[in-house]
Structures are given as C-alpha cells and as structure tokens.
C-alpha cells in the first residue's frame, strides 16, 4: 500500500514534469516572436513593445495618459503629426491657410479612408472637436481647445453657456475645415497632433454608442496601423499594418505587439530572451546594463520640482529662505547617484528639450542663465538662510514635504531632505508620504508646506509651464502672485505679442526670470526614461510632448 502512495506521488511529479517538456517545445525555440506575444496574429517582423501601464482609454477625447495617446496615434492621424525632431508637419492636412490676422485657419484634407471604407471628411473633425468641449463628455483635456487653442466659443461651451454647435470649427465642404480662434495662437499647428484634436467618424460612433473604443470592432483606424486584438485594460494587445493607409509605403513594420509588464525584472528578462524589442529599465537595473550599446536614456519631458507653499507658510513666504533652499539642493547628486536613469539636473523653470524657438534653439538649452539664483552652492545657501532666519526672528525651522508613495519620488525626497538639513543649520524636514491622488488633492487644497511634484508639457511651447504661475491658476499650488508676471503672460497669450513670434519668445524669458528670481519653485530635474532598444530596431521616434513614441518610420531587421 505504501508503495502505491509513493508510486502515485512519483507519477504526479512526472506528469507535471511532462507538461513542462511539452511547453518547452513550443516556446523555447522560437523565443522572440511568440512566447511573450499576446496575439496569434503576431508575426516575427512585429515590433514587440513593453508598456508599464495598460491603456486607460482609446477614446481620443477621453484619453489623458501617455500610453493611451501613443496607441491612439498608432492607428489615428490628425491634421498634423510629429516629425523625428518633434516638429509639427502635415498629416491629413493637404494644405493649410492662415488668415492675415492669424485668427482663421483653413485646412484642406487629403484623400484618406477609415478602416470601414468611409472617407475621412471635414465633419469627422467637427464631430471630434465638439465632443472634446461637450460638457456631457467631460473631457479632461478640453482646456486644450479653450485656454490653449483659443478656439472660438470653446470656453463658453465647456462652461455650459453655449451649445457645442457654436464651436469655432465648421465643415465648409467634405474636404475643407475652417477654424476660428479668439486670438492668434503661434503654436496652433503643433496642437493638431495632440489626440484630443483627432477626428471621430460620427456615423460609426453613433452605431457603437457607449462601446466606442473598447474592442477592435468599436474603433476605426485612419492611421498607420489597425487595432486587431484588444480588450479594455488588456495586458497585451496587437496592431497590424494598415494597408489602406494613405502613406502606407512609409510604414515598414508588419505590426505592433504591446505587452504590459509591471515588474521591471521580468521585463528585462523578457528583453534579454528576445521577446521584447524595447523595454524600460529602472534605476537599480541601470548599473547592470549601462555599458550595453542598446541602453538609451530617453527624455520623458516631465519637470520634477519642489513647490513651496508661500501662502499658508510664513517661513516660505520669505524669499531668502526659498533662495537658500533652492541653492542648497545638489541636483547633480540626485540624478547621478539616486535616479541613474539619465534624468538631467535642471536649473530653469522650463525644462530642456521640448520647446524650440523661432531660431531653432532650445528654450532652456542654457542651464546657467539663472545661476545667480539657482545653482548648487552651499555657502551662498547658508548666507541666504542666515539672512532669512534673521528676518523671521527664528533660529530653527521645521517643515514638512508631501511626496508620492512611488519608488523614485520617495528616494529623491529622502536625498532632498538630507541635502537641505545638512546645508541649512536648524532646518528639520519631515516627509509625508501619500498615495499620489491624495498628494495631488492636498496640494490643490493648499494643505501642504513643501511638495515634490511634476509637470509634463502638453504642447511644444514654454507657456505649458509658464502658464501655471499666473495668479489663481489651479496648478499654482504655492499661490504665488505677481502682477508684472501676469501682465507678461497675458501679453504673450492673448495680447499684442501673440503674433510676434520672436518678440513673444524673448518676453517669455523675462517671465521665466521673474519666477526664478523669486524662487517660486525649486526645479530639480527633467525626467529621462532608461530604455533598452534592440540593435535590430531603428527609427522609433521619441518625444517628450504628446506622443511619446511614434513607430511610423520604425524598421526591424531580421
């Protein structure tokens, strides 16, 4: 009897062992294409891409996150697209005419088709844009049409004061779109690649109703790829090349195979087995791969900064205290010793590498332009600190800093705490670690002293950052207010400089200088993502704004 039990045990173990061998035959050999793919439709010339988070929404007017934007743009073209350098170049727009006053744009459409065979018409844009401002849709990015795009009546429609039909976009005929703006917007063309401005086929939308964007059958493609395998919040999904794309000769990939992997070790192992062509690596893994030629640091656009609450905390209302703190920060140490992912130390209120001026130069290329007020200088910091404390009549200060409960922010905050306490005698910083949603709420409610936060650019213009510090802006967490600053920003958005590109550009420097001189924020670093990109793959275009990755020109060799 005892033998039988033992025999059964052995049989069970063997059975499990057998299934193991069975598995090895199908997966071991092929490695790259099938094992990590989520789709039977995938082929070996698909690009296998790792994502950190699943898609939140495939509705172009509802999506807000970078992952969703990237995937929507894989299969949808707007009027404009980004070129390799991030410049706006025509996509569906055949011809663009701008009126002399800069307030009327007339776009003529190319011949393009939706994947159900319908032609892409002017009405698709009208319908999509009207959805973006429709209060019933409650699009989070509606401000791209109102505050930023300055499209006629957009603000009133969002506020429920006017009907969406009154939005300043009209279909003159099937191929011609007329857009009316309140004021000239110098970067208007560069908004056109932002997914909130993408067209939606009205007839198709009405036919699928609430299910829009939840499966391959409920989305339409007019872009380089077609979605052929997808479920809401899927951990893997697939797009194939769109043969009916008007520019299909340009697209070299057979398809895109997305895989969501939240565990960084698993992601790297998958990359090393060849199951992924590109993957993110975290700070701890960088040491392991940094000498690999396939390792790349790719700009992610986010500026991380510390926001002092100048309204509620009287110590932080003192300019010398603020200057002392920003001078005491060793940003180089944060990026090289803590983050290690290629993130760049930043000494300007507008981060580098996303906004290019009329002369083609980067707005923040010169990181030393505010070195009088923002550099790493412990002795200057100590001087400001002493002066500040004297003005306050204090000998020591206790401040708290709210921080997201995520890995990188917590590490950064710990170093910031240490740096500040070391350089500024009498200062004690306590960290308040909170879930991100709570941290954002606390900062929006003004319920914080110092806050470690970030901001990603929405469009390729310094205004996406500078617009935040005007009086009463909801992202002006510290409630700073300066009438000169407000005046400059108004001049550059709706005022006399709106059409004067060079004049506006120069004036924006003046605005940034006020922010820096007053230490309204303590910029820390511009985030980079450490990525591995297979040497077999070329031509993936990375952008810090709007569309983080574009695959239209990507090539994967065998």
């Amino acid at each position, binding site marked *: 009897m005892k033998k039988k039990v033992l025999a059964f045990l052995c049989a069970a173990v063997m059975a499990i062992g057998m299934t193991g061998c069975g598995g090895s035959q199908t997966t071991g050999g092929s490695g790259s294409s099938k094992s*990590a793919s989520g*789709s039977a439709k995938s082929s070996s010339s698909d690009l296998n891409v790792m994502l950190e988070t699943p898609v939140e929404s495939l509705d172009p007017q509802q*999506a807000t996150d970078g992952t969703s934007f990237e995937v929507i743009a894989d299969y949808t073209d707007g009027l404009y697209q980004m070129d390799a350098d991030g410049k706006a170049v025509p996509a569906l727009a055949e011809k663009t005419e701008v009126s002399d006053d800069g307030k009327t744009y007339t776009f003529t459409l190319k011949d393009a088709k939706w994947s159900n065979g319908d032609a892409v018409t002017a009405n698709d844009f009208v319908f999509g844009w009207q959805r973006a401002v429709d209060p019933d849709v409650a699009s989070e990015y509606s401000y791209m049409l109102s505050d930023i795009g300055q499209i006629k009546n957009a603000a009133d429609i969002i506020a429920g004061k006017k009907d969406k039909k009154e939005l300043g976009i009209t279909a003159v005929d099937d191929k011609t779109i007329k857009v009316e703006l309140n004021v000239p917007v110098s970067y208007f063309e560069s908004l056109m690649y932002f997914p909130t401005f993408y067209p939606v086929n009205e007839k198709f939308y009405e036919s699928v109703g609430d299910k829009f964007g939840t499966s391959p059958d409920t989305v339409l493609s007019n872009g380089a790829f077609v979605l052929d395998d997808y479920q*809401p919040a899927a951990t893997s999904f697939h797009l194939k090349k769109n043969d009916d794309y008007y520019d299909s000769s340009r697209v070299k990939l057979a398809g895109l195979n997305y895989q969501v992997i939240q565990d960084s070790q698993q992601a790297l*192992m998958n990359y090393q087995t060849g199951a992924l062509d590109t993957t993110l690596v975290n700070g701890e893994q960088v040491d392991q791969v940094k000498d690999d030629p396939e390792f790349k640091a790719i700009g992610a656009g986010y500026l991380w900064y510390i926001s002092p609450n100048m309204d509620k905390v009287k110590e932080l209302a003192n300019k010398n205290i603020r200057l002392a703190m920003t001078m005491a920060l060793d940003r180089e140490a944060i990026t090289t010793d803590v983050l290690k992912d290629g993130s760049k130390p930043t000494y300007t209120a507008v981060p580098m590498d996303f906004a290019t001026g009329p002369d083609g130069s980067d707005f923040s290329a010169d990181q030393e332009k505010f070195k009088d007020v923002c550099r790493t200088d412990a002795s200057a910091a100590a001087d400001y600190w002493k002066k500040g404390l004297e003005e306050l009549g204090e000998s020591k200060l206790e401040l708290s800093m709210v921080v997201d409960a995520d890995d990188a922010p917590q590490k950064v905050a710990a170093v910031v705490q240490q740096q500040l306490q070391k350089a500024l005698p009498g200062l004690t910083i306590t960290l308040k670690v909170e879930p991100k949603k709570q941290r954002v709420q606390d900062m929006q409610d003004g319920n914080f002293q110092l806050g470690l936060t970030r901001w990603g650019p929405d469009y390729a213009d310094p205004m996406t950052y500078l617009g935040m510090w005007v009086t009463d802006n909801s992202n002006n967490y510290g409630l700073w207010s300066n009438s000169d600053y407000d005046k400059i920003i108004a001049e550059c958005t709706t005022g006399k400089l709106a059409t004067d590109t060079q004049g506006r550009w120069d004036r924006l420097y003046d605005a940034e200088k006020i922010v820096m001189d007053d230490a309204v924020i303590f910029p820390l670093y511009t985030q980079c993502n450490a990525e591995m990109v297979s040497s077999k793959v070329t031509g993936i275009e990375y952008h810090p704004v709007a569309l983080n990755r574009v695959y239209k020109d990507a090539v994967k060799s065998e």
Partner: protein
Amino acid sequence: MKKYLLKRVLTSIFTLLVILLVLFILMQLMPGSPFNDEKLTADQKAALYAKYGLDQPVIIQFFRYVANMLRGDFGVSYNISKNTPISQLIATRLPISIYIGFMAVLVGAVIGLLLGLLAAFKHDTIWDTIATIISVIGVSVPSYVFALALSYQFGFKLRWFPILFSQQQMFQSSVLPSISLSMFTMASIARFTRSEMLEVLGSDYMLLAESKGLSGKTLIFRHALRNALIPIITVLAPLIVDLMTGSLVVEKIFAIPGVGSLLVTAIQSNDYNVVIALSFIYSAMYIGIMLVVDILYGIIDPRIRLAKEGS
C-alpha cells in the same frame, strides 16, 4: 435540507447587502477621489462628479447602485479603463484568475495531500522529515519569491515555460504562476493531512477496524482518510477563494490580466465602482464556497448531515 439551504441563501443575500453598504461607506473614507489629477481644474472635477452622480449623498448613491446592480449593471470604470462597463472588465478577467487559481488549488491540494499521507505513514522517518521541510518552506516563503525564482530558472535560464502569461498559450504560461501560487496551499494541506492522519491512525476505531482484518486500502480510504478530510476541507475552502480571486503580486510578476491586479490598481486610483464590484464578488464567492463546504461535510460525514436535519 431544502429548508436549511433556503435559510442559508437568504442569510447570504442579507450579508451581501450589508457588505455592500459597508463598502460604500469605506469608499467615502478613501483618501482623494478618482479625479485627483494634476491637469484637472476644480470646474472639471465638479463636472465629472456630476456626470457620474458622485455629488449625491452616499445613501442615494447606494440605493441607485443596488437598483442598477439588480439589473446586472455594475457601473463604469472612472479611470483604470475609462467608461468601460465593470461587468465587461470583470468578465474578461475573472475567468483567467479562476483558471490559474483552480490549477493552483488542484496542484496544491493533490501534492499536499500526498505529502501529508507520506509523512503520516512514514512517521518519524527521513520521508517525514523531508515532507516537513518542504511544508515549512512552502508556508514561510511568499509566493512572489517562488514566482521570481521559478521564472528566472525555468523561464529565463532553461526556457521551458514563457515568463509572461499569454492567452494563446494558456496552459504553458499558467504553469509557473500556478506552481508559485500552489506552494502555500500545498504546504498547509500537507501539514494538516499529516497531523490529522496521525490522530486518526492512532484512534480506537482504527484499531478496531484493523483488528477486524480489513484490507489496507479500505482501511486508509474508507476509515482513516475520510475522517481526516473534514478538517482539511475546512482549511482548504478559504484557500480556494483566496487563489481563485487572484493574487496581486503573482499576477503582476507574470503580467496576468486577472482580477487581483485589477483590484489593487483600482484601489490605488480610487476607481470606486471597480473596487466595490470586485469586493462584492469576492464576498459572494466566499459565502458561496462556504455553503458548498457545509454541504460537502454532510456528504463526507453522515453524522453532520443528520445533526443538521434534526435541527
């Protein structure tokens, strides 16, 4: 029996309603809201609250939710997968978690039982020691350690199994996660089987049965194992629910699109409807399995059945 069942089902429904109410109140206590985002202004947040009826008093939200739920509508997701009906989200994910959980339970229960029997019959031998060591490791090492170790060894080094879950290779890609998840069950079951069997084997009625000259097979399966099974099922039942409702870490490691990872993401991003629906389903599964277990007791041990019918 029927009357008993009816009573149990009615109590279960009432319990579930209470759970739902408690969940609603807990949601209100969660820090932040689904719409705390850097890019959202106060006006936009108010519009979103109004759109989803979150500006109403909790009690009205509760009754509206219950009314919708009775019609099979669990609401939509606020931010994990915007405006996707929860029923659709769960319908695609729950079967995957149940499948992997079921494999894990099967592997864990069968191997655990065998290990336990081996240890009991070979009491105080090297086999017993080996089985005990395996059990201790299984209970004390968390499943994600097994998950990482197994995927490194069998996925990355030997390449026997895929590192990540894929629906096209459902079975192969479920092997590593199932084994990782089964370790705890296996170890617990092995330990319980061993101690229960030892107790039963030493009891008077076993001595009687043995002295009657019953064969080994009848002795073990008819008399010993059957009596030892009751406590084992009691231990196994909650483990089954636990495994079938998905594991956060193991699902995350193997990129399994199951409900465990969904729940945690939902809690972190305050996606109320997803949290409520999943917690509710967990509770329902738990209560359901417990009911099944009570019925199983009766089948395995007639004494329990009689006692219940008498009451």
